[in-house]
């Protein structure tokens, strides 16, 4: 059988000249090396520790067309195409990313442009930066997305990335690879939100790499409301002392949805804090996976780290895989991890039904309540309120159309 990587190798040989022509020097500088890395790595198999729960090869097997259309970016003071960046990116682009990850390598080889969020020293955008990704078209398409976020010393920013599926014919499907690299300099602070509301025809492979310097603070929230197959990897490196990282996630699964979150929090420097809370509510035949590793280097004394994964399987055929891991080489640290997989609290359901609340409604209230604390932790009030509404609608099974955008009208 032909390996699914073969078609990507052929694709690259065929169109790399075109990609390079549409791209820019900083991206082209690493392209061929990335392609060679991909060719020798091949797609990860489920035997590889970080890919145990998702069959990558199968997801990349269909023959997708590749999109090389220019990005539709409204440039602002803080947002630029990578191809016309106001600063030299050679010290950043592909520097936080893991060269041994085949999906990152493939993305680096195929991506022709990306988005740069650049916030200068001690600056902070007045309102959150929003990036909307819409998957639409009449042909099955592979999209390779690249995002670079650089916060100079003392800068602050909130970035919200919305992934939306769109109306399309049933035979059309989408495959997205995404690499986000985040550089948070001393004393900077970033809140990064990703909200996925796609559909069963969408596969998403997202790799996020974060470098947090001294006294910086990074919060990453990954929210999967509807999707097809989703694999989110997040590697966060605390490289300067007193840095602080929060990774939160919530996943609502139903039908045949598959969502796999894989995190690594790497404490390199001493006196840093990290915190993770991932919650899943799985219904139907959906599958969820969470694997989170906390790695504490020998010199990372006084590390404080907390990892929690709590899951609710509300149907007998939903499946959850949970794998919290600690690897600690320092001796003066405080690290905790915990994982639970539970079913709906029958006594609470009965109590609510005795008060006249119909079973469906009671289940919805309990699922909502379960997700509540992840959303409560979101500091941005407007987003928090919007997510509460979205999540409730999701549990009610109401399809959501956005009220603001022109395509929905």
């Amino acid at each position, binding site marked *: 059988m032909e390996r699914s990587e073969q078609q990507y190798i052929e694709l690259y040989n065929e169109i790399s000249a075109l990609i390079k022509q549409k791209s820019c020097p900083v991206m082209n500088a690493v392209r061929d090396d990335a392609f060679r890395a991909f060719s020798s790595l091949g797609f990860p198999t489920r035997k590889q520790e970080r890919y145990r729960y998702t069959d990558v090869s199968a997801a990349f097997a269909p023959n997708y067309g590749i999109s090389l259309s220019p990005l539709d970016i409204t440039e602002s003071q803080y947002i630029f195409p990578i191809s016309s960046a106001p600063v030299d990116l050679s010290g950043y682009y592909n520097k936080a990313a893991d060269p041994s990850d085949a999906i990152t390598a493939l993305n680096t080889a195929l991506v022709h442009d990306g988005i740069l969020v650049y916030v200068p020293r001690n600056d902070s955008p007045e309102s959150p930066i929003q990036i909307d990704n819409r998957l639409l078209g009449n042909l099955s398409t592979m999209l390779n997305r690249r995002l670079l976020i650089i916060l100079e010393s003392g800068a602050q920013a909130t970035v919200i990335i919305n992934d939306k599926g769109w109306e399309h014919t049933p035979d059309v499907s989408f495959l997205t690879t995404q690499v986000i690299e985040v550089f948070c300099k001393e004393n900077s602070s970033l809140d990064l939100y990703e909200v996925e509301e796609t559909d069963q025809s969408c596969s998403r492979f997202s790799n996020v790499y974060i470098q947090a310097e001294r006294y910086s603070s990074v919060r990453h929230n990954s929210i999967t409301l509807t999707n097809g197959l989703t694999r989110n990897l997040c590697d966060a490196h605390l490289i300067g002392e007193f840095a602080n990282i929060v990774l939160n996630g919530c996943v609502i699964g139903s039908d045949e949805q598959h969502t796999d979150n894989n995190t690594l929090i790497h404490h390199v420097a001493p006196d840093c804090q990290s915190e993770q809370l991932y919650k899943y509510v799985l219904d139907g035949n959906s599958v969820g996976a969470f694997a989170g590793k906390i790695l504490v280097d020998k010199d990372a004394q006084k590390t404080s780290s907390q990892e929690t994964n709590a899951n609710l399987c509300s149907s007998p055929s939903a499946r959850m895989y949970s794998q919290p891991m600690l690897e600690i080489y320092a001796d003066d640290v405080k690290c905790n991890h915990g994982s639970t997989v539970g079913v709906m609290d029958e006594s609470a359901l009965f109590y609510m039904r*005795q008060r006249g609340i119909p079973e469906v409604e009671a289940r919805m209230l309990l699922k909502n309540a379960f997700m509540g604390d992840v959303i409560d932790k979101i500091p941005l009030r407007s987003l928090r309120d919007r997510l509460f509404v979205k999540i409730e609608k999701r549990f009610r099974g109401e399809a959501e159309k956005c009220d603001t955008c022109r395509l929905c009208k």
Partner: protein
Amino acid sequence: MLAIKNLHARVGEKEILKGIDLTIADGEIHAIMGTNGAGKSTLSNVIVGNPAYEVTEGSITFNGQDLLAMSTEERAHAGIFMSFQAPIEIPGVSMTNFMRAAVNARRKALGKEPLKSTDFLKLMREKRKLVEIDQRLMNRSVNEGFSGGERKRNEIFQMAMLEPTFCILDETDSGLDVDALRIVAEGFNRLRTAETSALVITHYQRLLDYIKPDVVHVLIDGRIVMTDGPELALKIENEGFDWIKNMQ
């Protein structure tokens, strides 16, 4: 109002109710007394339709309707309310949202429009005063961090909100000190109308000092073995259950 005939029920493989006959007329209060494990809580759970209990024989009719054919929530909509022996904590669901869902579900079942938000909050305020329950509890999750007394008072508050016609007080007195017991009992008495019927399940006479029963039943080993007036409760308080067991 309520007619139970030859009711048998079990939990898992264990038969607990072994043929209960009980009729409660409109406006009557019946007390059920009995030792631990006699089946008192099973009886109340079967009446409200707890899915953990299985009825194997017999019937229950409520205002002429076949109760056993109705879902738990339909029974609630028909006017049945149980004050739980151990009220359940529901983290993350606020008292306000919980009550709003319950009140509006019942209204919907009765063909009424849902209450407007302002009217609902006004209703909450009125009923809260009636049963003397603290406002700060309303902002919390259901029963979360409530003391034993607060939980029981919260049951009576919910009763006030839902205005049932048939109430089961399942060991409402357990875990309550005398003052709390009095407040809860007075709350119940204030709420009842001439048509309200109740089944009061208790170990002790104490509660019956405040909620006066018309009829007292003794439940032993899944059967009602004795039925008499309120004086029976007093006799049990003084002499225990052994003399009744010895008569069997």
